[in-house]
């Protein structure tokens, strides 16, 4: 009996060792452990084993069964591993990716969003107003004299109704202050229109971002601090910012803001990026007259305003040489912003 068990085990292990596919393995398992399998049959012989040998033979049988089962499992794992490896063999990882169309946001949206995010961190809320404006909101209330060149029909789009397309987003300052008493802390991105022939540096419809802060004790220091912080966030913390005195009808004092641009391969140069100033008391007077109150009395409040061209910021940011690229929507251009 003992010899038989040893022989069956040896034969079984040998057969398993040579099984080289799952079919052969399964056949072997049936031949050894199946109902009529060799080990099953000899196990049936236990009945005839003398009592005193039963324990010993039983143990031998168990050992043999365990060894065979282990061999089957190990062979199974080996065959599975081989099959898995075969299934993955020859896959060329270096083939190009399956094409997926990925879209993009327009560069103007990207620069506008960055500006808005920075200014929101500083506590500005968004505001807007109509693009078809009237002379009051676009000019009169902004202290622009009746015969100011900007009001000329050669420079501004008018309608037969006498209304016009706003020449700057500054009209939103007026709209906001009409509706809201101080404190006012708003930004207004939007389109503006001028009768400029479209060329590499001009669009007749362009995009601005306006800002206004009116409260008690708003000072030149606030104007400076706010815009220095803003442009350093936009162009990098080391950015040099300078304020050049300038003239705008609706602010006094007024400044133009330059940042020092360090473009690769070029000498650093100052680039004009925005206009700003302290809100002119004449603007507050116009608002109070319209509101019929004294919410914006210059004795009570002061404020600063600023405005910048977003198309221009986008051109500076990405070194775009022709502004028309921003309205032509060539996918080859847009893709670069994906």
């Amino acid at each position: 009996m003992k010899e038989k068990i040893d022989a069956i085990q040896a034969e079984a292990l040998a057969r398993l060792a040579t099984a080289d596919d799952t079919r052969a393995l399964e056949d072997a398992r049936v031949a050894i452990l199946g109902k009529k399998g060799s080990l099953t049959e000899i196990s049936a012989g236990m009945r005839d084993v003398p009592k005193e040998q039963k324990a010993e033979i039983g143990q031998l049988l168990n050992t043999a069964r365990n060894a065979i089962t282990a061999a089957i499992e190990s062979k199974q794992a080996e065959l599975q591993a081989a099959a898995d490896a075969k299934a993955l063999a020859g896959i060329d990882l270096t083939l190009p990716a399956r094409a997926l169309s990925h879209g993009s946001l327009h560069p103007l949206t990207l620069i506008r969003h960055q500006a808005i995010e920075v200014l929101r961190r500083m506590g500005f809320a968004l505001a807007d107003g109509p693009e078809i404006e009237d002379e009051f909101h676009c000019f009169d209330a902004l202290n622009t004299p009746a015969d100011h060149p900007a009001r000329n029909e050669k420079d501004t789009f008018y309608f037969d109704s006498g209304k016009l397309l706003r020449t700057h987003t500054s009209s939103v300052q007026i709209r906001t202050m009409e509706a809201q008493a101080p404190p006012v802390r708003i930004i207004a991105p939007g389109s503006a229109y001028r009768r400029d022939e479209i060329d590499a540096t001009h669009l007749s419809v362009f995009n601005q971002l306006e800002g206004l802060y009116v409260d008690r004790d708003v000072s030149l220091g606030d104007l400076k601090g706010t815009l220095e912080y803003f442009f350093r966030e936009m162009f990098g913390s080391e950015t040099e910012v300078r304020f050049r005195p300038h003239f705008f009808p609706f602010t006094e004092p007024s400044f133009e803001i330059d940042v020092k641009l360090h473009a690769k391969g070029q000498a650093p140069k100052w680039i004009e990026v925005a206009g700003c100033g302290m809100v002119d008391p004449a603007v507050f007077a116009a608002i109070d007259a319209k509101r019929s109150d004294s919410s914006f009395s210059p004795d009570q409040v002061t404020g600063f305003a600023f405005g910048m061209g977003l198309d221009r910021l986008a051109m500076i940011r990405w070194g775009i040489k022709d502004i028309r690229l921003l309205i032509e929507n060539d996918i080859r251009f847009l893709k670069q912003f994906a």
Partner: protein
Amino acid sequence: MNVSLNWLATHVDLKGKSPDELDKLLTFAGVEVEGIEIKGVRSDKIVVAQIMEAVQHPNADKLKVTQVDAGEGQLRQIVCGARNYKVGDKVPCCLPGADLGGFVIGETKMRGVESRGMLAAASEIGLTDAEDGLMILPADAEIGKPVRELFESDILLEVEVTPNRPDLLSHYGMAREMATLLEVPLHPLNITALETRASSDAIRIDSPEACPFYTLTRIRGVKVSESPAWLKARLESIGLRPINNVVDVTNFVLHELGHPLHAFDAAKVHSPIIVRQAADGESFIALDGATYPLTSDDCLISDSSGAALALGGIMGGAESGVTEATTDILLEAAYFTPSRIRRSSRRLALSSDSSYRFERGANPEGALPAAALAIRLILEIAGGNVEGDTLTAGNPPQLTGPVALDLAKLDQLTGASISHQEAATILERLGLTATADGLWQVPAFRADLQRHIDLVEEIVRVKGLDAVPSRFQGTFVPSSAVDHDYDADMRLRHRLAGLGFHECQTIKLIADAQLIDALPLKPLQPGDSIRVALPLSEDHAVLRPSLVPGLIASAERNLRQQASSIRLFEMGRFFRNAGGGKAKDLEAESLALLISGNRQPESWTQKPAKADLFDLKSIIQALIPGVPLQLVPKEKANFALGADIHAGGQNIGSFAMVSPARQREIDSPAPLFVAELELAKLRKLAAVSTDIADLPQFPGSSRDVTFDAPAALANAEIEKAFGKLQQPLLVSFECVDLFTDPSGEKLAADRKAITYRLHYRAADRTLTANEVDTAHQQALAFITQQLGIGCR
């Protein structure tokens, strides 16, 4: 405006100031320096040298080896290629180290022969070439002397003066500003006051609002001829062309003092001078030879003959000007009202150095000093005698007065960073004087200073904003409705980019011809589109009533670049009237979408498939997940397959295919599908619901059914029937297959087999197969009965 530094130096000492320093000085004073041009010889190392010897170069036919005397005690050997000189000539010699504008001369060998410097042509050292080759200097030029000293050099600044500072529009005015900023003295003007006499006989002002002050001085016996060299040089230094001595003097005075003058040929004037408004329809022939039709808004200088002698403050007439034949002149010095000059100049598209200054605001008190200087110069240069007094009419308007400086407000605005003493000093330097009652008297040339804030502006400008410390603080404000809309729009933008769309920006002014591409939310009637009165071109004449025309134009541009897969969107405002123009100037925001061509970019693993309307429909659905979307067929003018887009129980936009005819026009190989959605509605539908459902506790079962239906029966009709079905266990259904056979072989051509999957579930238990079957049978019986169709 061009400013000559040599000219400025006659009024203020600028020695030792580099062009860069002056640039910075002016920039921070609010005067933009747009260009700096250095005229003349730059380097002191360019000296007068005499050519003592010139022999043929041993190794080069075209070169000579010269020995020159540059005043160094020994001769200097220089190789030279020019041929226009002879031994003994004096020429400019650039010594080693001479900087010729970025190019520095050194000692070198030329073809093996030592050359220690360079003999130069005029253009090489910043002068004008008179001949080809070396510049031949006068024989009496002193050897070794810097050539710079033989020729006046100058620096020309091109500046942009802001409209509030007309006082800077002259060399004296600019010098006055620089003297203030540099804290150096301004040289006094040597002008003797004129004897004046009011004379209503000689001058009649009929339009005092346009010209409140007018003066005339008669000079007899002048000899009109070429101006002397100094005067011509002055005018040429700022780019003006000399004409004759009298006209040149008036031009000089304009650029010297900023006050325009005009000289008439007295023989052409029939006294008295009459300053009047033009008659409507009257015409004027100006100096430039052109004829200008006038209106009563224009101010004419006329005389008793009624002739139009000059357009006041803008330009003289062709007939009355000073010519070589003139012997007696009448010199006009006057003050014209800025707004009137501006209106006339603009309407007539006629501007001059004179109108430029008057429209910005000349100094009314500057008229007589300007006349005095001009008279002195004319007498000096052209001879003649002044006849009698200067005759005047009207009075110079008083435009400036005392202004209060509120020191508390100054401190508030500057954070008290500028001391009161310093503020006072700055105002004094600017020519203001403290009055006894604590106010500041503003000089006549600074009419821009009218209010407290104007004085603050000057103090800050002169002191510089650098002196004011930055402050970082601000009030907290709540977010606005615009903020919420903006955030919703950004979410939509990001989602669309994720869906493969490129965001576009198109011009909001479009052509009339593009209106056929408009896909408005509500049909456009005549009178509903908004046209600007004076378009720049017909391409940009109408405010877009829809964003689709811009996208179609963008698609067209990309098709020309062989783009095979186009997915574009734009968000923004559209503009229209409604009701045939009854409701005016409506502005709202929409989202426009366009797809055409390959659904996905072609690659080795995907065969290209063309996007169809269901792609666009799915994209719109992806913007409002969970909100059932329906396309309700509706004719859209100029488009095919038009539909209204219904979602959330409302019409949120328009959907269409570009008509095949238009597609051929655009030359697109694939159909184009477009949609325009009202953003106000879309933002609400796209917002994530706050109403979150619990997950079901028990599994559900599904059953498929295929209906045998007429091909013309719309899915919407079947869905509608499902909508009427009362079967509590049915939780949802979806269309999973559609089969048609136009050949009629497998299915009659006018029939379709459309398959739906119906999902059944109960909230409180697992359904038995029996329950599901019963519910399913009830559902099918209802649908087939409702629609009169069968099941397969």
